[in-house]
């Protein structure tokens, strides 16, 4: 029984990864998006290196945020439409476990590749090499928080399938991640102590891992009754 209660994590992680890999492009898409927006920014804003590197820390974080937001919408909406959400809700596990499995899969498909890709953008925007490690650490932690918070919004907006409403709900909650995330990179660029904001991100992640699954399971049940 105990086994059963904690179960479902691996099963859902595996299934969602399989689905993401199935349309083979899926893994490369968030990366492409990340890169594309990164290309558009110098086009829209004057491309002087000094200007770009000044806004780079913030920009990288805004991009990460948008990539998460664009993709999190489908976390539950497909399951809702094809009926497999009902199966999730009646699985004899603690509801949190499958949910965390799905979120982990989302992070592996979106957050992790973004993190690994970020050095390219850093070079593009002439960020100093010394800022690479803090940048990647902050992205790894921060995108996980973004996935968790985004999933709350995705669950609550299920009956209408997100889009801009999801963005509206989730964006204000994303603020702290954005601030601490870009502060980490900025501090590293300025040669200040970047461990403090990074620790804040880690703290946010800890809080989110505990609280978000609760809100999500409540949200999913409510949405079925919507």
């Amino acid at each position: 029984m105990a086994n059963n209660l904690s179960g479902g994590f691996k099963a859902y992680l595996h299934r969602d990864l399989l689905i993401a890999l199935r349309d083979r492009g899926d893994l490369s898409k968030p990366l492409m998006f990340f890169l594309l927006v990164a290309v558009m920014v110098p086009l829209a804003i004057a491309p002087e290196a000094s200007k770009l590197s000044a806004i780079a820390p913030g920009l990288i974080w805004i991009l990460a945020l948008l990539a998460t937001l664009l993709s999190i919408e489908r976390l539950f909406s497909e399951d809702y439409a094809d009926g497999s959400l009902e199966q999730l809700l009646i699985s004899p596990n603690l509801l949190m476990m499958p949910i965390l499995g799905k979120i982990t899969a989302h992070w592996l498909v979106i957050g992790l590749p973004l993190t690994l890709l970020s050095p390219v953008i850093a070079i593009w925007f002439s960020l100093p090499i010394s800022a690479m490690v803090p940048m990647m650490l902050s992205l790894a932690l921060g995108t996980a928080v973004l996935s968790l918070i985004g999933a709350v919004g995705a669950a609550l907006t299920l009956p209408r399938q997100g889009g801009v409403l999801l963005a509206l709900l989730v964006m204000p909650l994303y603020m702290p991640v954005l601030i601490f995330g870009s502060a980490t990179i900025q501090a590293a660029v300025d040669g200040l102590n970047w461990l403090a904001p990074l620790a804040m991100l880690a703290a946010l992640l800890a809080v989110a891992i505990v609280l978000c699954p609760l809100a999500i399971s409540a949200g999913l049940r409510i949405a079925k009754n919507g």
Partner: protein
Amino acid sequence: MPTAFSAVFWHNTVLIFLGSNSPLTTHTVLKVESLAFERNDAVLFQPVDFELKAGEALQILGVNGSGKTTLFQLLTAILPSSSGQISYCGQPLSDCRYEYLSDVLFIGHQSGVKAALTVEENLRWMSPNNTSCEKISAALEAVGLSEYAQIHCANLSAGQKRRVALARLMTAQAKLWLLDEPLTSLDKQGVELVERCMCQHLTQGGAILFSSHQDLAQVTTRNYKLEPVVEVA
């Protein structure tokens, strides 16, 4: 055809024998007492009361919109009931939620088939963890999809999709089956197949609660009609 028929006939005979003559072997699996559901303060159906014993198949009847699907969602605790009591093997549902859910197989209107996965992956995913490969391919064979095992479910016809979901009937290890219109989109062979599966489940001591607008006289032990609430003006 004759084989299938005689099998069904035989099963039913056994069933009647078991059901009527040896009350000791059939215990109450599911008991529903004055169960009611409200949405926006409007009561949906008259309070539901029934008992489902092992070896019984109870058909829920009711016109379109009478609340059959809602009832299934109440019974799987997907929706919260407004009043009344559901008990499983004598215990109220709230006390044995996880035991209950691990004994239940629910197939709803939407069958939970993932379009991006292949037929085989879907069945594996929806079956218990320890299901053997042989069992999975036997189930696919039975629903006539062995040729489609590696096809993505997005490319199946409506009836084929339903068959993928119904293949779970052959891999699941649940005692209680809750089937909401299992026959949708199925052709005649498909309907027969489901009947056969249901009969077999009953003879093995399982219990079935299902809804359908078609008659499944060969399987159904009893039926229960959902009645609309008459408004007192």
